[in-house]
């Protein structure tokens, strides 16, 4: 193990380490702690210039209540849900099929198609922006949840296929050969043999894509406008102009907007990190 395990070091070294850790963490999360602090302060503190002192009263419930009751925030959160969940399902479905095809079969153009998916996943969004916006308008889906979902599914399929293909590649191939010898149809091999083995990969991808799509801002701005379809990342701008300079409310709003992926991460940590670090070890 590197660095040398702390247990092998001197007692004073161990104590220093234990003391440094929480200090480093607070420093690391300082901007976030500041916002959390803002979000429970009363408006009066800001008027009196008490930005960094102790809150004169705890107003967490009032502030967060206002976010939910006096703004479009619930609507934006709901939109984000309706955008994120279908995208996760669609992208995972398409890519597990494509990954199966690319990971199991040997055919001409296999590697070429695979690299096409990888390359497409890396392109700058801006080169897609004008045509995709135009296409969405022509299909009558501008400023709609469906328009955003269709694009997200298509784009995420690139990354997901890379992920799925490599995962399926690592499965024991004799299993599939055995099924073939038994005469199992190919689609049944996918459904009954490969898919059950892919459960960890499916979970990892679902959590990752949830986070990516929830946090998307660029496409939300390009393909939607207004509270009817905008997700929370884009809606927060409108929210902030509604509560201009009311830092306690803006802070509370930001925390609400950021919370769902954070909750997802802490609940599904193992899968999340497994997905993110795929390929970081050989």
């Amino acid at each position, binding site marked *: 193990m590197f660095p040398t395990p702390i*247990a092998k070091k001197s007692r004073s070294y161990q104590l220093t380490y234990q003391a440094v850790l929480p200090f480093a963490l607070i420093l690391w999360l300082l901007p976030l702690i500041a916002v959390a602090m803002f979000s429970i302060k009363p408006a009066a503190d800001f008027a009196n210039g008490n930005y960094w002192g102790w809150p004169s009263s705890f107003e967490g419930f009032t502030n967060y209540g206002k976010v939910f009751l006096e703004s479009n925030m619930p609507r934006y959160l709901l939109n984000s849900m309706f955008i994120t969940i279908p995208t996760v399902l669609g992208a995972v479905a398409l890519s597990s099929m494509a990954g199966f095809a690319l990971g199991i079969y040997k055919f001409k153009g296999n590697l070429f198609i695979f*690299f096409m*998916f990888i390359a497409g996943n890396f392109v700058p969004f801006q*080169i897609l*922006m*004008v045509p995709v916006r135009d296409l969405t308008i022509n299909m009558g889906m501008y400023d709609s949840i469906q328009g955003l979902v269709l694009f997200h599914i298509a784009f995420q399929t*690139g990354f997901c296929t890379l992920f799925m293909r490599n995962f399926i590649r690592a499965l024991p191939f004799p299993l599939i050969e055995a099924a073939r010898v038994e005469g199992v*149809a190919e689609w049944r091999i996918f459904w009954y043999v490969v898919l059950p083995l892919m459960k960890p990969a499916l979970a990892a991808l679902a959590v990752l894509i949830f986070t990516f799509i929830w946090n998307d801002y660029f496409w939300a701005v390009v393909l939607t406008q207004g509270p009817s379809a905008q997700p929370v990342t884009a809606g927060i701008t409108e929210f902030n102009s509604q509560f201009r300079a009311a830092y306690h409310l803006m802070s509370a709003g930001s925390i609400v907007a950021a919370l769902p992926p954070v909750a997802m991460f802490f609940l599904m*940590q193992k899968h999340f990190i497994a997905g993110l670090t795929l390929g970081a070890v050989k």
Partner: protein
Amino acid sequence: MRPQLNPSANRCMVFACVKSAEGHDMSSLTPTSRSWYKRNEIALTPWLFLFPAMLFFAVYVIIPIGQSFWISFHQWDGLGEKTYIGTANYERLLGIGDQNIDRKFETSFWNNLKWLVLYLLAVPAGLFIALLLNQTVRGIRLYKSLFFFPFVISQVVVGLVFSWFYLPREGLLNAILGVFGAGPVNILGDPTLATYGIIAAGLWPQTAYCMILYLTGLNAVDPEQVEAARLDGAKGYKMLWYIILPQLKPATFIAFVVTIIGALRSFDLISVMTNGGPFGSTRVLSFYMFEESLSEFGFRMGYGSAIAVVLFFIMLGFIGYFLYSMWRDEKGAR
């Protein structure tokens, strides 16, 4: 289900003969009785499985890349007719002929370079934190998650959080500087500092990402090699450089890929924190393209597409290199 042999290639027919010689059921093996699909099942299945993904990907990713190239040779407001103007957009952008280079483009390009170079600091910073946290003490798992979680927060919120952090009067940064007697600085209001302020905000989640990559990599380091090197007297930096880092190569590769791509994609933070200002000093190509195409001064889709094409070619250099090294690994695996 009735046992049936795999109906794909000639090899299988040989296989079928072997099987029938062993006295298995032969009736299902007569080739004429099987449908065309059954006979070609192995060749057809991959294409059927690929079809939906390829359709989506082609319509929304591959074809639009070509269309953007096409649009970049036109003048277009996004609604009316496109007017073909040849390479005029590029000439205006790069200042070919008797015109000057587009100043906004120039600023954006240099800012992109700053992003690229400074953003890569996330890689060593991530390694540093990973080395700090790669211990087994009580509660270390919680520490690892808490160090990582800025990455999970949306860039929009990161941008907001940092712009409040930098506020000249209310911001915590200036409150801390004040304790040390340093005067208040308005980072996002100062054209010479604003870009660096945004990059610092971007480094925060990116470092967390690199950290988690390295933590996973460190987990897989071969303990025997480390022990052997230790017996040979290697420690500290020497150990890190000659024994550990070579084993972390896959993690380093991915860290570089995601950081470079992230640097060139930077848009959210700039849009939220400064909206390109002050005086356009924080624009990067991706932001400038957006601004030209969907600005309130009218839609210049052709010109915007030309900027996107330039950005695409910059990115293509990196993508080409990434694909080449992945392809090399694929070949090695075969």
